[in-house]
């Protein structure tokens, strides 16, 4: 479109920006993570992850994030299938209604779940009206999973919806003409075609769920600590940046694995290859 020199000039601002605000900050974290307070190289802080409290928090974070991701995936597939098969006109309004809750502050809506789930909360008051025994809902791992699903479901729905709506109707009709029933069409046609969307949804849900400290603080009652809570405390209460950074470096390992997964299934790349 224009000369190479112009292109390079246009790229410069972003290169400087990325160097200063993406790469150098990450180097800072790694640097703090592998040094001790005297500034000497030390892997002691990284090794802390194997200590009792930290290891349990990491395990709980991974398990809850995995469960939430699977729940989001299972909820989103039928939802997106229903949404894409509707008439075009209705789809816009219905999908807007799904995006609308995103404009409610997520801290406040998570707190509203407290009001619904707590000991004297809305669900338990309904249970009492029906003279059923109270349920222990708040401060359980289940409540944290519910909060994660509530907060991150849109990140699963949007990429899945986009990749589902890109499927050509005639492909589905062809599958039916060839004798596939609804289930076979889903497993052998729809599922393979939507894998890029599902993968990007999975990474967009798993990482924030793994690293959150807000949802666990609100719905876990401060007793169920996730790795995010521990890192946050190292910075706001303990003021031990080296430990906090060392634990962040361990989170970065998960993030890098996730990035590798997304690049392997990059939808943009596939489109270009096809073009």
């Amino acid at each position, binding site marked *: *479109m224009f000369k190479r020199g*112009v*292109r*390079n000039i*246009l*790229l410069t*601002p*972003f290169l400087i*920006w*990325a160097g200063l*605000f*993406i790469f*150098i*900050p*990450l180097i800072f*974290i790694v640097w*703090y993570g592998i040094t001790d307070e005297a500034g000497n190289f030390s892997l002691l802080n990284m090794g802390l992850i194997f200590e009792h409290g930290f290891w349990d928090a990491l395990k709980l974070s991974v398990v809850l994030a995995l469960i939430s991701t699977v729940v989001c995936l299972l909820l989103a597939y039928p939802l997106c299938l*229903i949404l894409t098969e509707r008439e075009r006109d209705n789809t*816009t*309004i*219905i999908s*807007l209604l799904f995006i*609308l809750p*995103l*404009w*409610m*502050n997520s*801290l*406040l809506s998570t*707190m*509203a*779940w*407290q*009001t*619904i789930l707590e000991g*004297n*909360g*809305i669900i338990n008051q309904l249970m009492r009206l029906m003279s059923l025994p109270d349920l222990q809902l708040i401060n359980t791992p289940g409540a944290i999973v519910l909060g994660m699903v*509530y907060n991150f*479901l849109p990140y699963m729905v949007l990429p899945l919806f986009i990749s589902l709506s890109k499927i050509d109707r005639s492909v589905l009709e062809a599958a039916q003409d060839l004798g596939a029933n609804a289930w076979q069409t889903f497993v052998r046609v729809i599922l393979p075609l939507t894998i890029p969307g599902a993968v990007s949804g999975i990474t967009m849900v798993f*990482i*924030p769920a793994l*690293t959150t*400290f*807000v949802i666990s*603080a609100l719905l876990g009652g401060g007793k169920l600590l996730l790795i995010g809570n521990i*890192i946050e405390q190292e*910075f706001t209460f303990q003021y031990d*940046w080296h430990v906090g*950074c060392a634990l*962040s470096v361990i*989170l970065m390992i998960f*993030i890098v694995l*996730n*990035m590798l997964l*997304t*690049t392997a299934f*990059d939808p943009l*790349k596939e489109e*270009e290859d096809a073009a």
Partner: protein
Amino acid sequence: MKYIKQIYLAIIFLFLYAPIGVLIAQSFNASRYRGHWTGVTLDWYVKLFNDTRLADALSNTLSIGLLSAGIATILGLITCVAMKELSRKWRATFMSVTNIPILNADIVTGISLMLLFMGMGLKLGYVSILLAHIVFNVPYVILCIMPQLMALDKSFYEAALDLGASPFKAFTSVVLPELRPSIFAGFLLAFTMSADDFIITHFTKGAGVDTLTTAIYAQLKIGVHPEMYALSTLVFFFVLIFVLLFAINRRKLKKYEEVLT
């Protein structure tokens, strides 16, 4: 089967809107403690307009949102235009760099930027929050603009050049209008992300400067002021009306198109 689908949609809707309903109800609750219903009041809406600290937080949220989205849109647009000219391999490399702030965990981004700002000797406050928000907004803008730019037909631009337009003129009068929907979408997405961000703001803010989300978080332990529910209710209905008008407009436009064709 049709009923099952409708019931499924209804359940998901209930799940998504239950907490929002609770918040709206709380904004009219006479008791300042959540979960205790003592009657209907409009007090919180009146108090909302006299609360200067809340007004400060709101104006910070809005100005940081608009500024960071605006700057991110300009930077993102320039980068997209340049990236279109790269070879496929280099473009893929660049795209994965631009994606880092989205794929990275907010807590890691927040901490790393805090360390950078303190290392640079920048006082944590309004400017540090603004910079941090631009950092995570740029990739959203690029994700919105890049697909449309890649799909754009080059021949219009080249025709403009052949007809004697300068490259800058050809870009602003041919390419830019084509990109307007995605630029607008990118700006809007960036603003939304900025306004709703808590974690990165939490780490990059200094004492004394608050956005709405950090103000809410500070109140969570002592009990959120009900003015906050009132404000969120107003914001929610404002967006709802905006969205409905948009949807109605689209329908009408479609009908006109159908009549015309």
